């Protein structure tokens, strides 16, 4: 038995290396494909020597500075507001029933694809949008929509709002999961018995303890907000657009040699994201330092219902915006004609659904299989890495795992070009393994992110007890650790699945045009700007992740109830 155990732990030791190997190829190829053309090298397009022309050409692009500034500003603002809203909401509402239910309320929002939410939001808040239509022309007198930039405003505020409706639920869920890892209740009780109001207690003794656990998700949000393309195309200003869109357009330019300055632009964007994360880290340190005297001065601040309602109201309105936005898209899918200023369609039809439903089955199946495969694989790898950490300690491979977050930090378009080249070299492009692999690059970081903290916070005494009782690592893992961690494991799986469902560019690049997923259909059809079709795809696209999220919530509760019934 002893030798068997050794074998087990040695095999486990390999998992972080396997994970790294799976990742390093495409990650390095991706980075090289970004970096090399940025310095003039891409023989396929005649670049056979190193030089700085790409950078020169990049800096000659008009509006570059403003584009970079816009990315930095919207990214930082969106992240800052996300964090303020989430912490404000948690500190004010942590005692309420609404708070305890928020995980179930918010999960569906995570499942809805970014673009769909953005388009729904745009239709809500545009000058000709649904909110204006509700009050026009009888109240506003606007027989024509007013000429005001409520979306695509030059400050990028609509973009920030669009990012918020997606990122607030994400960070809130991450915070909820972090809250389960510390003795929140007792800590709060202690602080409150010392006279601190619930808000002050949460901010002073809970937040500082959980912040380290949600730091990485916050960085991911920051990087995402700064490099998002699809949402920005719908909501961001156009002249100039944010850097991400500018770089994307350069990559997609009909002049193929634009790949050179585009690659330099991607490098610039990478540096900008790195700088923003650095700045954020610095801010964290300064805030922590500045807040210490405030924390210790004895302020017990009693803030009553108004604050509580304000934060609750803010987060609820965000949720309402995305829900109502998605619902109006749903309305659109049944509309034949629906023109300004009507608040409801003037002619209804089922024809859009009837026409598209038969075409949905194939892509839905592909999406489902792909998502299940990528999320399962990511889950196995993440569990392997984490379990190895527990059994063998943090080795050199574990320390290198941060590299896996790179796919989230580098602009997708640049990075994927290199990964695609690697797949073609390996003769794998357009195959299932390639596609699953490409999805894994983006799915794994989120799965790992969602699972790492709960797993590391798992009380080792359970494991030791179980080991002593069963004498088997496998049985301990499958009978004790996995069942006890079922909730976070399924939750991580659901997040991974939703990330896979949302993949567009990686599907296009690795799939070689052989695979059509719901998102591919949705994004390509979205370029036709037909809100009815977008409505159909937004709804169907959200259904699959919703089912998986539902399972992640219902299954553990169901199993627990069955267990309880059996115990009785």
């Amino acid at each position, binding site marked *: 038995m002893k030798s068997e155990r050794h074998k087990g732990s040695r095999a486990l030791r390999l998992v972080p290396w396997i994970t790294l190997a799976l990742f390093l190829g495409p990650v390095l190829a991706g980075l090289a494909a970004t970096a090399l053309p940025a310095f003039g090298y891409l023989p396929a397009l005649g670049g056979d020597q190193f030089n700085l022309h790409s950078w020169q050409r990049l800096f000659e692009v008009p509006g570059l500075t403003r584009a970079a500034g816009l990315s930095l500003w919207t990214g930082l603002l969106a992240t800052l507001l996300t964090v303020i809203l989430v912490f404000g909401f948690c500190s004010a509402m942590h005692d309420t029933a609404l708070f305890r239910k928020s995980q179930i309320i918010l999960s569906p929002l995570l499942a809805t694809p970014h673009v769909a939410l953005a388009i729904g939001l745009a239709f809500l808040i545009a000058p000709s949008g649904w909110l204006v239509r509700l009050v026009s022309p009888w109240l506003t007198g606007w027989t024509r929509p007013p000429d005001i930039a409520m979306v695509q405003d030059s400050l990028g505020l609509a973009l920030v709002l669009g990012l918020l409706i997606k990122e607030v639920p994400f960070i809130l869920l991450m915070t909820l999961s972090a809250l389960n890892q510390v*003795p929140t209740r*007792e*800590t709060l*009780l*202690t*602080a*409150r*018995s*010392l*006279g*601190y*109001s*619930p808000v002050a*207690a949460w901010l*002073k*003794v809970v937040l*500082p*303890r959980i912040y380290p656990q949600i730091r990485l998700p916050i960085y991911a949000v920051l990087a995402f907000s700064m490099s998002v393309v699809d949402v920005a195309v719908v909501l961001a200003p156009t002249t100039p657009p944010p850097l991400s869109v500018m770089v994307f357009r350069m990559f997609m330019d009909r002049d193929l040699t634009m790949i050179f300055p585009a690659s330099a632009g991607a490098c610039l964007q990478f540096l900008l994201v790195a700088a923003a994360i650095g700045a954020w880290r610095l801010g964290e340190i300064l805030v922590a330092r500045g807040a*210490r*005297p405030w*924390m*210790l*001065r*004895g*302020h*017990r601040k*009693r803030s009553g219902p108004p604050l509580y309602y304000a934060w609750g109201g803010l987060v609820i309105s965000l949720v309402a915006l995305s829900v109502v936005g998605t619902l109006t898209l749903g309305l659109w899918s049944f509309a034949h004609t629906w023109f300004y200023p009507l608040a409801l369609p003037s002619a209804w039809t089922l024809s859009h659904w009837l026409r598209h439903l038969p075409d949905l089955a194939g892509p839905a199946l592909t999406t489902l299989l792909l998502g299940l495969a990528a999320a399962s694989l990511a889950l196995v790898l993440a569990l392997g890495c984490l379990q190895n950490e527990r059994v063998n300690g943090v080795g050199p491979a574990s320390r290198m795992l941060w590299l896996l977050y790179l796919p989230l930090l580098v602009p997708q378009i640049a990075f994927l070009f290199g990964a695609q080249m690697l797949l073609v070299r390996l003769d794998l492009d357009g195959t299932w393994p390639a596609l699953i692999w490409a999805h894994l690059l983006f799915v794994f970081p989120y799965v790992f992110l969602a699972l790492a903290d709960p797993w590391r916070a798992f009380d080792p005494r359970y494991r030791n007890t179980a080991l002593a009782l069963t004498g088997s690592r496998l049985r301990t893992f499958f009978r004790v650790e996995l069942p006890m961690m079922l909730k976070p494991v399924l939750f991580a799986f659901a997040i991974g699945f939703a990330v896979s469902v949302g993949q567009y560019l990686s599907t296009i690049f690795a799939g070689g045009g052989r695979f059509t997923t719901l998102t591919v259909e949705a994004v390509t059809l979205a370029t036709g700007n037909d809100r009815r079709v977008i409505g159909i795809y937004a709804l169907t696209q959200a259904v699959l992740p919703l089912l998986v999220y539902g399972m992640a919530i219902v299954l553990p509760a169901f199993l627990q109830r069955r267990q309880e019934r059996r115990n009785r």
Partner: protein
Amino acid sequence: MKHPDGLLLHRVTISLGALALIPETTLTVAPGEITTVMGPSGTGKSTLLNYLCGTLAPAFSASGQIFIHGRDISALPIEKRRIGILFQDDLLFPHMSVGENLLFALPRSVKGRHRRQDLAEQALDEAGLAGYYQRSPGTLSGGQRARVALMRTLLSNPEIILLDEPFAKLDTELRTVIRQFVFAHIAARALPTLLVTHDIRDAEAAGGPLLSLGARATDHQS
């Protein structure tokens, strides 16, 4: 009705559904007195403490009133009740140093950084922990942590003290020492105290009245 000084539980009942967990009870704890609550698991000891803190889970229903020095606190949230609690776990905040944990407890009315720091240092001195101000709670022994936790509670100027099996995790020898330490400080400040424990020796050392909760065992976790 004239209320005595100290803690008064007036006609308190707590029930869970149809089950009367705590039948009507009226109880006075005089200043400096330590009343011990004992009883097997599941008889409602923790429920009683939660009731006193105002943190009873919604499934429970309670009636009656709580007075501290004649002040009705039954409807107040925990932070306004001026109750000091010590748990089995010391719950020192790991993100603050030992000294900062104490500063955190000092009332707002104590002004000035130096004055606040002096008070914290003084409390450490009293606990025999002079020089531990900058230490992180994680580096302290169990006994040291228990003493810091008590000092922290006392610094917040509570009007009564609740002790929730505060010595259960300490070994026998340390237990006696810490018990003496805690009881001495409570006596010095003449605080009405409610002690919940499993250990009859705690009750004996407390020397106050003993309240035994229902001997009947239920399978419900309170």
